[in-house]
Structures are given as structure tokens and as C-alpha cells.
């Protein structure tokens, strides 16, 4: 068994010190070591996007990163979006536009939408669809998800929220 390495991650605003094997994926670190099971695993070839989190503000597939690669970094998962039991506008928009069915792709979709709306606050439909290239959904046919992200952009601009 390989030696454990100590890493420090700031996850959803909380600093965590962990001892991990070098081979441990970031997604397993989040789900198993920190109990943050909202980030899901849908494949092992980094196609489906269910594992998407924000790493230093960028959307990354946490199944495609070793935990040791994230040493010293800041991670935001789906659990870190709502503030004081108030849903984030993107979460609210997904609810309003019926963009969720089985919910398995949803956290990844929402985290990807976070990054998109930060960079492009009022994206066009085609831009949204292209941005979701790396996030698969088998239930919704994507239309309501696209509408939710457009609506979230409007909500965020209206509320003066940028992240």
C-alpha cells in the first residue's frame, strides 16, 4: 500500500486536512472522506459530467483529478451553493423550470452553469447547449435545463448576484 500524503483542501469554505493515498480521486475524497455525496459518479472516462465541481472557480470533472493534485486548492460542491437555507438562483431556476427528473446529472449541471454564468451572464441558447457538451442527461432531453440556465442568468442579474 502506498504511503498516505497529507493534503489541505478548502471545501465549501471549510479548511480540511486529509491523509490520502496518491491514487485517490478527488471525487472519492469529496464523497467518502468528507461525506459530500451530492457530487455523483456516472462514468469512469470523464464524459458524463455528473462529478463536476468548481476548483478555484473553474468547472472541473472531479473524477478526472487526483486528490493530491488539488492540494491547497479551493473546491465548491453542490452542497456549497445554498446560503443559510436560501437556494442559489441557479438552484431556484432549476426548480421553477422543471429541469430535474431523476436528479443524478443535476449537481454537475448546476456547477457547470455556475461557471458559465460567471463568465457569460446572459448566454444565448446555442451558447448554453455548447457549454453543456460535457454534461450528459438521459432524462430531460435538455430543453428545461437550458431554459433554467437562461432564467437563472436573469435572476442573477436581477439580484445583482455574480457567482
Amino acid at each position, binding site marked *: 500500500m502506498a504511503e498516505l500524503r497529507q493534503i489541505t483542501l478548502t471545501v465549501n469554505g471549510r479548511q480540511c486536512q486529509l491523509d490520502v493515498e496518491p491514487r485517490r480521486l478527488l471525487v472519492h475524497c469529496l464523497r467518502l472522506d468528507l461525506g459530500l455525496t451530492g457530487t*455523483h459518479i456516472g462514468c*469512469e472516462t470523464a*464524459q458524463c459530467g455528473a462529478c463536476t465541481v468548481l476548483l478555484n472557480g473553474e468547472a472541473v470533472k472531479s473524477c478526472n483529478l487526483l486528490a493530491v493534485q488539488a492540494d491547497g486548492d479551493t473546491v465548491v460542491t453542490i452542497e456549497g451553493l445554498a446560503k443559510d437555507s436560501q437556494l442559489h438562483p441557479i438552484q431556484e431556476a432549476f426548480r421553477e423550470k*422543471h429541469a430535474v427528473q*431523476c*436528479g443524478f446529472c443535476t449537481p454537475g449541471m448546476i456547477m457547470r452553469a455556475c461557471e458559465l454564468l460567471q463568465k457569460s451572464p446572459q448566454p444565448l441558447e446555442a451558447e448554453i447547449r455548447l457549454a453543456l*457538451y460535457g454534461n450528459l442527461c*438521459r432524462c*430531460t432531453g435538455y430543453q*428545461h435545463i437550458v431554459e433554467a440556465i437562461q432564467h437563472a442568468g436573469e435572476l442573477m442579474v436581477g439580484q445583482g448576484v455574480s457567482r
Partner: protein
Amino acid sequence: MNAQAPLIGSAIPRLEDTDLVQGAARYVGDLQIPQTLSVVFVRCPFGHARVKSLSFDRARQVPGFVAAFGPRDLEVLAKPMQPMNLDPDVAERTLRPLTDEPLYAGDAVAVVVAEDPYHAADVATAVDVIYDELPTVMDPNEAMKDGAPLVHADVPNNVAGRFSFSMGDVDATFAQADVTIRDRFNSPQITNASLEPRGVLAAPGGTNGETVTLWVSTQAPQVVRRCVAGALELHTNQVRVITPYVGGGFGPKGRPYPEEIAVAAIALNLGRPCRWEATRQEDFLSTYHGHGLSIDAELAARSDGTILGVRARILQDAGAYLLAGLIVPQYAAEHIIGPYHVQAADVQAIAAYTNKASLSPVRGGGREQGVFVMERLVDHLARQIGMDPVEIRKRNALRADEFPYDTHYPKRYGGTIIYDSGAFASYLDEVRALIGYDDVRRTQAAERNSGKYRGVAIALFAESTAMGKEGARVEVDDDGTVSLAVGSADTGQSHRTTMSQICASELGLGVEHIHFVSGDTLAMEVGTGTFASRFAVMAGNATALAAKQVRERAVALASELLGATPQALELCDGIFRVRTQQERCVTLAEVARQARAGGIPLCATHIFAPKNATTYAGAAHAAVVDVDVETGVVTVERYAVVHDSGTIINRSVVHGQLHGGVVLGLGEALSEEIIYDPAGRLLTDSFQNYAIPRADQSPPFIVKEHSCASRNNPQGIKGVGENGAMGALPAIIGAVEDALAPLRLSLNDMPLRSEDLARVCAIAASAS
């Protein structure tokens, strides 16, 4: 929430979503039970082999090792599962958890247990298996030839079963036809590709560890429960199956699996909770595959476009084992005649075993292949006689005044197919307008000259929805809130929301007052599963009837308490009031307390199991596509649906189901195919080589309701879950043929890959 606003028909936001959008919903892989062990299966990578040797010597040395089992280490692991359909015409051979003669790539030969998932994977890698590869048979036609390798030694010519349906005089009909159209259609095996791979967590319990609770990513917990209890020789009340949140199912999670038996057996053997989660590759290998049909079909017609009759020969690839009987080719056969006047039909079906994963219905369940056959034949007929495809359908479609319509088409277990209600000609007119059919027709010829190839097509069909039985239990608690339990599991269909809408509506409450449970065999032991477009119909009616019973008793009690007649009372926001004297009132909570004090709680259970539960939904779908003739890439530019789903509970839910079904159909039409090599190794085992549609490949939708209430259930509901997948194949493929109309193509093989279409276009271009 105003409880007086009608709840049935309201597109309220879903009750499930607050948890789901926060990542607070727990799927099988998220459940945290202390001391849970990790289970990994060792699977044969070949299509057919014998295990020459199996050794755990190295595996036992790996850190974290807890246990390892071969087929002979626990009797239950080598026992075949109980067949699902005890049909004498079908040679059903079922899976077993472990085998020493694997019959498909993915068949498990050993199972290991370790303290955590990483160590379990290490242990599995250290299991030494030596295989003798055996001859495989990978094509159902080849499988039936004399001398072909046998998948099962006791099934001659690998024939799993056959059936035929016949009505009218088909030979005479074809003899008198002016025109005959003949085509052969191929639908390869596909996979459901639900975003959550399969998984099972089993925990021993009870005072002496004699019970087992399973959490399963399944559509049918009641079925899993009976299967596991039977296999482990336990009483059903020693087994409880709970569905946590489930990340999609689409059919293949509606059948029981050997892993459920194995994980339960191992948990009981080791006395600790055990969890298995499929990797995506494992899910591709071992989750039951859909489709795998080839249909040779002929249509007989008059020169004016009147359809006379149809003949079809269905060849079904059954895979290596059968656990779903012949339901897939049966659904295909039943949907070939469509919503048209057809005087004669003859369908023969045969299913053959091959060394591939087992067959299961996948969204559509075979119906969509029947629809594809008729709709493509009709389009080819229209082309042959120079008639517009919409006009030819209108000529043949059933009229609104003909319902209920007896097709005279025999059902497998007796009776004939009767469509209860519909307005098919109207769906055609409405979808034609919605999609802008005439606009495309007006400009497409000129656009072709400038290199833009745009096409439009419409598909019309009837869809059988609902079957089986479903239970609902409604109880008013002492605080006036209501507990509602239904049987079948939610895999994304919004059970909590839709059933709460119905229950709350009946009891004059807001949906927030309903505590809802589904998919827990302890809460409700009666349920067939969430598939076959059945849940809204079956559970919706069970819920409504149970809630009605509760309401009637509550009204009677309230009238006693208030000294008024039942007719004088109204119920709103959880309070009974005398209509003309509003201050005379009693709460539903108080009525419930009085009922309990009197000895019988305010509670009712209804099992909805009518003799003829099946009700026929319908739709017209339309697609506009653009074809890039150089790359062969097809873009669906827009998509419209006019659908009849009977009484609608929640329009947002229905639209979501339609969008999702169409996009799944789009994948089947353009990119999805399970491929094995001649040795039976699975080549399509990841999202890298099996492409499901992405957001940038999916169209915008316009959906319109045209509801014709069902005649077959009190609520008038029809199912809609599979409707999307059924219309997408003919609409999209038809639109591609239309875009390339001068080439007069018959694109009958799915998927229509871009490279194949590009080749066809290149050949046509060089020939001209």
C-alpha cells in the same frame, strides 16, 4: 397554497426538487451505514467460455481482503433465477449470480468483498481466472442454423421462442393490392445508459440476523423482493426492498438481477452490510440490453393510398438469457397496425439466443419498432404513389367517432386490441401547423439547389399504456396531515409530486400536507414497477380511490360530529364546515383523532387491478432536420409533438417525459449501437464509444396537448413515458429521407451514422 385551486392539471414545481438541487438526495452509493463492506464481481470478458481454474490465493493476500466466493462457495450463488414468464412456448433460461460457464461478456464468475471500494478493486484484480474460450454465436440468424454453436445445450437451434398474430385474410388482401411496399428494418441492441449505474446495498437485520433489507437502484422493488426471497428461501416478510433516489431506469432496471441475490446472500453470510456499485463499464456489460430486432415487413395498398394489410417477420435477438419473456417482439407486433384501418395482418416472431447480454424492454419496449415499421412503410408508399405523407395518413387514420375501436388484432393472452379513445386526424392537422410543415415544403426544393438539405416528416401512432396492479394506502394522521404510500419506485417520473396532487385534491388539502413514500415494500407491498407507461394510470387511480374512501368516511364522521347531513358539508384547507353556517366546523385532524379513538383509524388501501387496465394513448410527432451531405451529420432543427395522454396531472412533468423520450429516440436513430466482436467481447463499453445525445445535439421542442380521456380508468389518465421514444425514430429518419428526397433513400438500419450517410450521399453525387 390555496387548496381550492384545482391540483390535478396544475403544473406546480416538483416537491422532489428542493433536495435534488442541493445534492441532498441519496442514491444507493450515497447511503452511509457503518461497517459497510464493498463488493466487486469478477466478470468474463468473452462471449462464451468455461472457467478452467479459479484461484483466490493472491487475492487473499491483498490488504483489506474480507472474503471471496466462487459458484460452489455458496449454494445460492450458482442457482438460476426464477423465470419471469412461465410461458410454455418460451424456452426461458435464466441467469445465476455466478457461473463456471459464462455465456456472455459480463457473466460473473466470482465475487470478492473488502473493507472499502479501492481495496475491493485491488482484490478483484488479484483473482486468477483461466478461461477456455468456446465458440460464440453473435447473430440471431446464424444462431438458428443447423450446426451453429449452442448458447444453452438443451435449447435446439438456439430458438428461445416463437409466436404469431393473425387477423383477416392476409393472402387475399395482398393478392388484391395495387401496390406492395417491402422493407427490412434493423434496430440493433442498445443500452439504457441511465446516468446512475446499477447498485445494491444489503444489510442483515432482525433480532437474530434473519432478515435482510436491500436498497436497490430499481424500478420494481416488489419484484426484486420476491425474487430475492425466493432465491434465498426466505419468507417475503423477511425481505424488505427500499428504493432510495434512483438515477434513471428506462426499462432495464425494471427486472430483477443476480447481483441483488448475491449481495443479499453475502450480507447475510458475513453478518455485515455489503454494497456493490457498478462501474460504467460494468453497467454497459451487464445491465440488460434493449431492442435487437430485425423486422421484414410488407404493406399492401390500393393505388389511392388506402392501406389494406400488413405482413411482418420479426427476428428478436434474445441475448444469452431470457428474463423478460418475449414481451419486446410482442409489443412490436401489437404496434405495427397503428391507428389506421387495417383489414388484415400477419406477424410471425422468433427469438434466438446469442452470446450477448440479456434482453429487456428499453423505453418503448418494442412498441417503437412496430411504429417505425408502419410509419416508414406508409412514407415509402406515399413516395411510390406520389401522395403527400400527411394526406395519406389522414386517408387511413381512425376517425374520432369510431372509438372505442376494436382492431380485431389478437392479444397474446386472449381478447383483441381495442383502442379506447383518440382523435388521430386532428393530431396530424395540429402538428402540421406546429412544426411549420408547409413552410418547409414551400422552400425546400429551392434550398436544395443552393446546397441546403432540409426535410420534414410526421409520425402518427397509438401507444398501449398501463398494465398490472398497483396499491395505494392513505391515512390521515392526528395532526391532519396525510400519509400516502404507493408501490412502484420513482426513477425520475415525479411520483411524489403527481400522487400528492391527486391525494391533496381529493382531501381538500395543500400538497405540502402529504407525506409520501414510494418504492418501499414495507410501506406498500403491491406494485408492478415503473415502466410500460403505467404509473400515472395505475398509481394515480389507486391513490384517487383510496383518498376517496378516506374522504367519504371522514365526511360521514364529520357530519355526525357536527349534527349535519353529509351533503350540507364542504371540505377546504383541512376543515369541514357546514356550508350555510360556516362557524359550525371541525378539522380533519379532529375527525382523524375521533376515528382512532373509536377504534378504526381514518385510513384506506386501494389495490387498483382492473381486468383491462391497458389504455391507448396517441400522438403525432414532427421533426425538421438539416442534413450536411459532406459529413452526413443530421441536425434536428426543431421538433413538435401533439399528444393525447388523457387526463393530465402536471403538464411540466408530461412535457419533460416527452422531451426526454424524444432525445433517447434521437440517440437510437443517429448514434447508439451496442457492438460485440466475433469472440463476444463488448466493444462499446463507455461513453467514449457509445454516444448518447448531448445538449448541443438535441432540438428545441413545441408540445401541445390534445387530451381524450381514457375510457378504461375512472381518472381518465393515459400513460406518456414512452411516447417520446416512439415517435422520434420515424419522425427523424423520415425527415432525413425527405431532406434527400431526390435520392429516394430507404434508411431502414439504425443507427443512421454520419459516416454511413456521408458515403451514401457521396455515391449518389458521383453517380449523377
